């Protein structure tokens, strides 16, 4: 069979969607709204999984939604629907208007300041449709899982391997005349296998994700890494309770930096529910730390010309020489704080933590004895106080070398102290997410175990 992934969007489709979103704005105006913002998204894709050498699921995705926010002066209402018909547009706008009728005047509510809207729209190279047939997708998933299952005789079972390809088209418009859209793709390959040695059964996974299928790691490599990671965990034991230095692997470190971004988000700041209140201009990391946002990177997963309000995204340093230079603000939270939007409605775009301190192996050497964290589970983070306590698994390190795998332990501290006590940032940057950071070495944390 030669069935292809179900949707391929063209620029023509984008033009039609931009007209449709204008219809939403016109409808809002005709129902009395003084200002409005509207968006429409359509996406489609194919997901295939294989387990134990055979196809397990084939999923065809195709979804659509529209959303509108109306303002009656400083009163606001929002509504959305998965139905894009003209009738649904009318009804959705009516729902939003009804809600606005009950909302209270909020002096800070409203569209962004017009001079903040994006005016330049360089091509960020985000659209690379993958011409992938169902049969090819199955073959790829099987190849990926095979390479994991045949990697070692201790790999005894599998949760399968998956291939996903997605393409989406989004437009955003507001009554200030903004109306733009773009088409983007996202493809991934993943694998999860189980290993068993004696009584120890473990599972781990690996994945690769990219805008362009040619930039994905090979199916074979993804499978091998999943197998290596699973094998590494076999025979894990707990640790006695102690204080010790800790290194977060790159994939775990992105969460650590994510907590920092959460704490400097406008919403948490104006609600005073952040452990980073009044830290602007202050030293919050050691002097060698630089954290910057690169929204316009070609092909990157977090790239965008504008944020979810249409405000232009900015290339900027959020932390330089360890000092907090700026918050992460939308128009609304900026007004609440008496500041200006930073183009971060909806979050940050390609946040990078500059490496400082060599490879992960060099970091391990520098640490000598301590804990290398490869997995974190649970929530355990209080954004108001910065108190941090999470379940962990990884390796105990002796003389800069991995000694044995560990599990059923917790790591705890306070995020303010943890950030100040960073010793080094590895060069092994993980580029699979919106936060790009290498391994993070922290001087001292509390590890609890059995």
């Amino acid at each position: 069979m030669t069935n292809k992934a179900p949707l391929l969007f063209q620029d023509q489709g984008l033009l039609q969607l931009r007209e449709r979103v204008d219809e939403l704005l016109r409808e809002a105006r005709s129902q009395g709204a003084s200002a409005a913002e509207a968006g429409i998204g359509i996406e489609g894709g194919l997901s295939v999984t294989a387990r134990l050498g055979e196809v397990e699921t084939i999923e065809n995705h195709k979804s659509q939604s529209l959303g509108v926010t109306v303002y009656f002066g400083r009163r606001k209402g929002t509504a959305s629907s998965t139905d894009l018909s003209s009738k649904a547009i009318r009804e959705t706008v009516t729902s939003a208007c009804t809600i606005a009728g009950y909302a209270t005047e909020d002096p800070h509510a409203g569209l962004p300041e017009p001079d903040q809207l994006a005016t330049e729209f360089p091509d960020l190279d985000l659209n690379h449709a993958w011409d992938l047939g169902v049969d090819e997708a199955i073959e790829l998933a099987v190849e990926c899982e095979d390479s994991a299952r045949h990697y070692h005789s201790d790999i005894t079972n599998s949760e399968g391997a998956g291939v996903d390809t997605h393409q989406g088209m989004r437009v955003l418009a507001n009554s200030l005349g903004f109306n733009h859209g773009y088409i983007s793709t996202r493809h991934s390959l993943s694998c999860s296998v189980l290993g068993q040695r004696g009584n120890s059964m473990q599972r781990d996974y690996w994945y690769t994700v990219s805008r362009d299928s040619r930039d994905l790691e090979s199916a074979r490599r993804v499978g091998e890494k999943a197998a290596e990671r699973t094998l590494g965990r076999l025979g894990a034991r707990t640790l006695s309770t102690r204080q010790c230095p800790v290194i977060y692997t790159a994939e775990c470190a992105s969460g650590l930096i994510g907590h920092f971004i959460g704490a400097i988000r406008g919403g948490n700041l104006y609600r005073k529910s952040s452990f980073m209140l009044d830290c602007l201009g202050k030293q919050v990391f050691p002097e060698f730390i630089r954290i910057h946002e690169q929204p316009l990177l070609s092909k990157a997963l977090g790239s965008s010309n504008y944020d979810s309000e249409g405000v232009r995204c900015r290339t900027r340093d959020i932390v330089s020489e360890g000092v907090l230079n700026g918050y992460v603000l939308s128009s609304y939270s900026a007004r609440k704080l008496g500041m200006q939007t930073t183009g971060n409605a909806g979050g940050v775009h390609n946040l990078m933590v500059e490496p400082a301190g060599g490879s992960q192996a060099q970091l391990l050497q520098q640490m000598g004895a301590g804990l290398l964290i490869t997995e974190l589970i649970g929530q355990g983070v209080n954004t108001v106080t910065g108190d941090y306590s999470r379940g962990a698994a990884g390796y105990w390190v002796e003389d800069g070398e991995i000694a044995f795998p560990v599990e059923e332990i917790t790591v705890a501290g306070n995020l303010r102290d943890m950030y100040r006590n960073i010793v080094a940032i590895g060069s092994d940057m993980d580029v699979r997410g919106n936060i790009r950071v290498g391994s993070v070495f922290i001087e001292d944390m509390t590890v609890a175990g059995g």
Partner: protein
Amino acid sequence: MISENSLALARDLIMSPTGLANQDIDRVMAELLSAPLDDADIYFQSSRCESWVLEDGIIKEGSHSIEQGAGVRGVSGEKTGFAYSDDIELNPLLDAARNVTRIARSGSRGTLAPVTSRSRAILYRPIDPLQSIPDSEKVSLLNRIDRETRKLDARIEQVIVSLVGVHDVVLVVGQDGRQAGDVRPLVRLNVSVIVEQNGKRERGSAGGGARTDYRYFTDEDRALEYGREAVRQALVNLDAVAAPAGNMVVVLGPGWPGILLHEAIGHGLEGDFNRKGTSAFSGRIGERVAGDLCTVVDDGSLPERRGSLNIDDEGVMTQNTVLIENGILKGYMQDKLNARLMGVQPTGNGRRESYAHLPMPRMTNTYMLPGPHDPEEILQSVDKGLFARNFGGGQVDITSGKFVFSASEAYLIEKGKITRPVKGATLIGNGPDVLTRVSMVGNDLEFDSGVGTCGKDGQSVPVGVGQPTLKIDGLTVGGTSV
């Protein structure tokens, strides 16, 4: 009765606006069954949701959303083909069915045992909670909670109140053309506060909900009680000292701390993991996995509870399933696919987030039955340990069995008495043996207030938990104080 009324209403709410007729559904099913499948179904859904948020003393935001569509599934052996459409119209559904039949290359027409048709009284009224009170009353309810909560203490800096209502209507069409319908109301209210004292800030949060209408929150003053509870928790945490680190005796309070059961054993007893042999509990039916005071069930048939359903998302009636009886592992939670492959009956645990997702075995309301001990007696038996009364979320690695859940309100127990509050900390343990260390079980079974949401493979569904006060003789507490 569950059957005719709910079905007729669901059919009316979903099909009438679309113009899709019964013979159209038959055509889609015929298209599906033109391939050699073992099972097939079509899941129609129409869901409306609203939310209202009060913050800074004003109604800041409200939103309304409509999601509707149909998911088409075909199963052949262990293989599943799936497609969905946001348009409930014949042609997109026929396209979806054609995509699905690709899975059936090596299918063997199965002999699926028909699901027994039983009937019982409905668990919740088939109402639309969004229409249950006028919008103006929703707004005045939020304002009243804000006013009354702020009066409680001068240290309150911020009050955020959110109200959510869902009117979810589903219609499941099985391969034999048999239809089952359900109208599922769900309401939820949450109050969160920030308090400040001498520059130190803390948060407290409380809420609840059920499968009923908004009057649930004004009955018995529940809404104002959430406010009082949020403030109480925040003030307790203002005085909290560093939590201890290490292995110690842990006493869990009744109710929401039952997420222990959800994480430590619940996920590990879902049928898919056990059919595949990937759970730490795989192949252990009949073995001892808990102390003999422990009996744990999953029950989707409790009236009006958040995790309850008249029928699951495969049209199977929900039930009370015994998971652990007097410490012995008795059974798993099953959807149709995994039940068939394991040669057992489905248990009404086949659930999906929406028509755009595949069903899988999921929990409903998971709880432990009460035991013989007075809660006071349990505390008095502890020389040194931790009493955990409230929790945030949890997570589990079902293969290694390691699970965590994070306390948001906890105290030291010293010489049988609760002494000081300690900061929140994550507790970590091993699912297959944590319950073997349960040495005392309280006589005070409570359910959570109706706040739980469970995530699995990226799909969220509402769930409930419950338990009596429990004493666990050793669990690792992830504090900072060594």
